[in-house]
């Protein structure tokens, strides 16, 4: 299923880009009128006259070996261009995921276990943060912490581990902001649900201490929905990071995708779209696998199909 999905998705991406308006020869020659010989050379080098399916097959075959073609405006290897930038995106997504997991689950557990004031604060916070899109969060964080307070650098990626962390802190929080609310909500609901389960009553009736009941029964069982929502969220961050990378002018694949789309760099849009879709599909498959390991009622065979 995973392979089929990726195969069909790659075909869809390639076809869409094939249909995109624009003349690659014009892009290659930069507006000058080329000689017929020059056109022929370019057509042969970039296989522009081959039938569509053959070109798709060649592109897919190359993609499987890690070669995503050549960026015509930059005359540079797309895979190399992606490789230079993907590190920033992975770091940003990892940092944001960490924030989402720690803050989201902490808030959710707090709200789930403590009724009253604490719970209401959690609910209000998550209602607010759920409604703040990453680009608005970026602007607010930039304005407050970078421009006015000067605690963090305004733009760019930074060098060395600590400097990178400092540069990525605001972007990571901006990216995490609305997802924190989602994870907190699901966690809170899951904890509430589990607290009310009959098997928790059984554990209480046997004198199991409260912290152990929370750990072994409530959190252990709530981990199943929490893992699912965290997984889905993390999978979607790769696409969402484009917005934050753009807002903070970070040099990641998301910002590069936007730049390529604006400059009609077909090969790069194809390549990065394929990478993002692949990551999305693979992370979702991992989530399914984790779900099956956490919940003995779900068999591994069933989720793989």
């Amino acid at each position, binding site marked *: 299923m995973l392979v089929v*999905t990726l195969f069909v998705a790659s075909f869809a991406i390639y076809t869409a880009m094939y249909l995109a308006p624009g003349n690659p020869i014009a892009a290659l020659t930069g507006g000058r009128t080329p000689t017929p010989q020059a056109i022929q050379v370019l057509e042969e080098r970039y296989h522009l006259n081959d039938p569509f399916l053959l070109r798709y097959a060649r592109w897919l075959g190359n993609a499987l070996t890690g070669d995503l073609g050549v960026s015509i405006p930059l005359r540079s290897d797309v895979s190399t261009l992606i490789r230079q930038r993907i590190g920033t995106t992975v770091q940003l997504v990892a940092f944001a995921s960490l924030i989402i997991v720690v803050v989201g689950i902490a808030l959710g557990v707090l709200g789930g276990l403590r009724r009253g004031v604490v719970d209401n604060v959690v609910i209000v916070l998550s209602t607010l943060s759920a409604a703040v899109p990453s680009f608005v969060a970026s602007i607010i964080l930039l304005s407050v912490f970078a421009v006015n307070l000067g605690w963090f650098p305004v733009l760019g990626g930074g060098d060395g581990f600590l400097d990178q962390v400092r540069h990525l802190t605001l972007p990571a929080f901006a990216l995490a902001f609305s997802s924190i609310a989602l994870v907190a909500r699901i966690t809170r609901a899951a904890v509430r649900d589990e607290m009310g389960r009959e098997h928790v009553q059984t554990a209480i009736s046997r004198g199991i201490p409260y912290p152990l009941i929370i750990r072994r029964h409530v959190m252990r069982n709530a981990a199943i929905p929490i893992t699912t929502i965290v997984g889905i969220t993390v999978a979607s961050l790769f696409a969402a990071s484009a917005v934050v990378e753009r807002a903070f002018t970070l040099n990641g694949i998301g910002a590069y995708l936007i730049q390529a789309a604006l400059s009609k760099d077909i090969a790069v849009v194809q390549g990065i779209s394929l990478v993002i879709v692949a990551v999305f599909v693979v992370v979702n498959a991992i989530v399914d696998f984790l779900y099956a390991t956490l919940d003995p009622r779900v068999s591994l065979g069933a989720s793989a199909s």
Partner: protein
Amino acid sequence: MSLVELPTATVASSRRLLAGRGLPFLRGTGVVGHVSAFVLFCALLVAVFGATIAPHDPDLTNLSFAFVGRFQNHYLGFDSQGRDLLSRLLAGARSAILGPLAVVLLSMLFGTALAIATAWKGGRFDTIVSAALDVLFAFPAIVLAIIASVVIEPGLKAASLALAIAYTPYIARVLRSAALRERSRDYIAALEVQGLRAWVICVRHLGRNMVPLIVAQGTILFGYAMVDLAAISFLGLGVQPPQADWGVMVSTGQSGVLQGYPMESLCAGLCIVVVVIAVNLLGERLSDRSNLVTR
């Protein structure tokens, strides 16, 4: 499970207050639902009449007023180009609100049609459509919109169409299971026995009974559409400057933010946040209600 839970006493009293009253469309959504709906109604009015009621020309630039604060009847001051900020916010509501509305209508139309068709026909048709939707699932909405901006052209139309397609599988999946549940009920079989044509049953009975769920899902989807569409405009692939639009304004205001004049970005961002909060709150209430209705 609702996101905002008021203290029990308040909820109990407001329930009593609204049990038999309130607008028919919003019955059972409580005070929060009514307030949210009111906010959305105002937003819709601004979306339609915003450009008309704007006190100044939203596109009139005067660089000598760049970043000037509140001044005479320019209540929010000026942006980086010296345009009246309040007027731009009012004018920008149109694409920021009507765009997502179009997205929601389109994907609800696609999603509902596919859901009812697959649930009704079943068999191979269901298998093929469901498989195709599964592939569509693999595309994050933003990626699809970026591809559309390259294939068609950057703009509100391409972005809206892309988002509508990206959301369709989510809507179709939720509504398909509801349609299956509804289809298995006895009254549908009774109608079939009476010899009613399939599409009549689907539209008049099956579809109509799913309306509370469709409305709830559509409301929740509106929040996502608004955020994603504004994000695409922020990236420069949606609504094109200099047209006023909240997403575009957050982006064009960014230079101001870095120079210490964050008004344009923050005001446009705040407009988005307020509408999204209202949509989310109302969507939850409606979805709680539809759960009660459909059990």
